[in-house]
């Protein structure tokens, strides 16, 4: 990866992290941990991978991003603002009455949101519908679904896995934000996911496993997904919950329902490389 692109992506990711912290503080609640863990994946998708912009939102050929782990919508809203779907002023409305930004994504309220995700498993199936619809219509549109690791407990996910492989949806990419924590505890202490890659492979998927914070690995994985014919691809992205904010990294309480104090906010923004208030 050329150094200019890498620098650009790192700036993009830093902006997203800062936006996530700022939104979290405006709302007084939300899900910062799982939003921070998927920042590099979301940055790559929105800045490099997808044909998706405010100008082509009505174009049936546009690529679709479905945040199946809808609670991590801080990352989605940050990316949409960064790409110009709405102003960062909207961050103040998050989780407030009449707000454009809901606690979980709402396509009817927020420009750029494709689906009302949040009930886990459903966004993934929705993405299958997008991919199947594109194939049936002969369109080049691709669908990208971002799932949480805890989300894989939903039976619907494995229904979708069987369908997508059987129907050879090679225009579908699922990314698992494998940050190892779900709401209550470590995934390994709830129901073990491993061997995760083998599970997806057994369901007929093309499986890639990467460091979900390394842009070179991310770029390479999405390129390999694009080149794969006849099978859907899953990218198992190993990530750190709360990534980039020292006091949140790997600390379960930052899954949701709280926000940083004023001091923590300043510290978090500093660690993201940004000190200006948004």
């Amino acid at each position: 990866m050329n150094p200019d692109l890498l620098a650009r992506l790192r700036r993009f990711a830093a902006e997203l992290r800062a936006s996530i912290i700022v939104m979290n503080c405006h709302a007084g609640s939300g899900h910062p941990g799982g939003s921070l863990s998927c920042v590099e994946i979301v940055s790559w998708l929105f800045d490099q991978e997808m044909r998706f912009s405010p100008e082509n939102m009505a174009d049936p050929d546009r690529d679709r991003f479905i945040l199946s782990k809808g609670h991590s919508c801080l990352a989605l809203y940050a990316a949409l603002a960064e790409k110009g779907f709405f102003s960062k002023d909207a961050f103040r409305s998050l989780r407030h009455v009449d707000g454009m930004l809901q606690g979980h994504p709402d396509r009817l309220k927020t420009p750029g949101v494709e689906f009302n995700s949040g009930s886990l498993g459903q966004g993934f199936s929705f993405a299958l519908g997008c991919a199947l619809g594109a194939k049936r219509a002969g369109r080049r549109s691709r669908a990208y679904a971002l799932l949480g690791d805890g989300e894989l407990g939903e039976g619907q996910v494995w229904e979708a896995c069987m369908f997508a492989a059987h129907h050879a949806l090679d225009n579908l990419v699922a990314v698992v934000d494998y940050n190892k924590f779900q709401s209550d505890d470590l995934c390994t202490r709830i129901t073990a996911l491993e061997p995760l890659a083998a599970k997806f492979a057994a369901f007929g998927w093309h499986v890639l496993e990467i460091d979900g914070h390394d842009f070179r690995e991310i770029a390479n994985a999405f390129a390999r997904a694009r080149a794969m014919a006849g099978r859907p691809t899953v990218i198992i992205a190993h990530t750190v919950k709360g990534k980039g904010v020292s006091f949140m990294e790997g600390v379960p309480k930052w899954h949701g329902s709280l926000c940083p104090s004023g001091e923590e906010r300043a510290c978090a923004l500093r660690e993201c490389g940004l000190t200006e208030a948004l």
Partner: protein
Amino acid sequence: MENMRDAFGKALTRLAGQRDDFVVLDADVAGGTGTHHFRAAYPDRFIQCAIAEQNMFSMAAGLASTGVIPIVTCYGVFASMRALEQARNSIAYPGFKVIIAASHLGLDVGPDGATHQALEDIAIYRAVPGIQVVSPADPHELASVLPRLLDGDSPVYLRTGRSPLPDVFAPDTAFDHGRAQVLHEGRDTAILAVGVMVHRAVAAARRLQDEGVGCRVLNMSWLKPMDEAAVLAAARETGALVTCEDHNKYGGLGGAVAEIVGEGHPVPLRRVAIQDVYGESGDPDDLAAKYGLTTDHIMAAVRAVLRRKG
């Protein structure tokens, strides 16, 4: 007399020759829902989703987002319970135009027994914002309403059915969809019926006519939004109501009518419905007799409500 599932499958097939804007999704019950007729004629527009209703419902929303209208088909218990949350959060809340078509409703299911007899689906779907609930009374109304639903803007829960039903309507009936049709006129009481109970209600009204009791019969196929004006007019003009449904007594047609007249024009009301119990295996007519859903039961309910009318 044609069974409702065959009528549904054949109506879809005829419609597919006239418009190419819809596809049919199935959860491995095509022979049960009648969509095997469609599959045979239009295999490219038939999507087999396997026994995985939850994925099917959410995926249908994704398909709808690409500009095609999915008609999602399965049995009533699965459409209204197993995949209900997908219907709510993937279809109704985001506002995707998906038609959920459910066969196998109530005791009309017959020998398959209680696991497959949906007694709750009207109550359940009435409670979900943003989705219409429609239950045609015979094959002609079913065939007529399909293009109307495809042309509409809203997601729909469409109750098709299973058993053969006698014609309630003439084949060339011009329906005013959304309105409750008066199928028999009378001033003493009004019988409001839905689905398989409509032809029984008409038969009850004819027999009561011979006894000197005049019944207005209304076909309440539009369960949501309901024709409230017709319900209130029936309450005002007859002073007593009987509701009839092959559904549990709570939250269905009877519940909806009670809500409307309770707020708008209270009158004595009797509900002919399943009395909050599960069904069992048996011939549909035998089950109707055992669980209180026959023409005789409707007539008894009319006589009872007339006594209260005073």
